[in-house]
């Protein structure tokens, strides 16, 4: 199934113009993130990566659904 992608800050720069990713049915946020790290290893430098799904902050074990929007971004604050 297809999951749409948006990203911010350093994650946005590294993601480039990629707008979606294909994952297996029942995949979780962490699965999508692993696929992305395989495709773009430099993403591992994103400091304290955080996720949101359809505009809601989400943990890595959140299950994804067809056409969900997965947002990827560095940790906020604390610097």
């Amino acid at each position: 199934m297809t999951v749409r992608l948006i990203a911010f800050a350093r994650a946005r720069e590294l993601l480039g113009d990629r707008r979606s990713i294909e994952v297996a049915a029942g995949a979780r946020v962490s699965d999508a993130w692993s696929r992305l790290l395989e495709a773009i290893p430099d993403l591992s430098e994103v400091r304290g990566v955080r996720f949101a799904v359809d505009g809601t902050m989400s943990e890595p074990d959140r299950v994804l659904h067809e056409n969900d929007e997965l947002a990827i971004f560095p940790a906020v604050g604390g610097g």
Partner: protein
Amino acid sequence: MMSIDELALDPRAVEDRVRAPGFGGVVTFLGVVRHVDERGRSVEALEYEAYDSLALAEFDTIAGEAGERFGNVRIAIAHRVGRVASGEVAVVVCAAAVHRKAAFAACQYAIDAVKARAPIWKREVYADGSAAWKANEAHA
């Protein structure tokens, strides 16, 4: 009461969102881009990027928390995004309360929370044209 925009901020307009009869104390914080960073490097501008919908929701959450902690307070938050030159205002937080003590406490609580939690990132742009992403908290 909340906004994220590329246009220059107008602190008085943000204050007007919170001013109301009986609210005798109004405290406004301006976060201004500094012209040097912590290591003394010359900063031309900061470039801010926000996850708008999430950031606006977080502003609302923060205002709600301030109300729980400090009573009857009115909070407005306006954050600029895009390029903000040094000396310009990047963020305005206004808090109004019946008495000034609560207005000060609420304003400080809100800006601390915005810096720590709002999904807004920034990049320092140096005089030599190079740039670096910064943790949000670092700038003011």
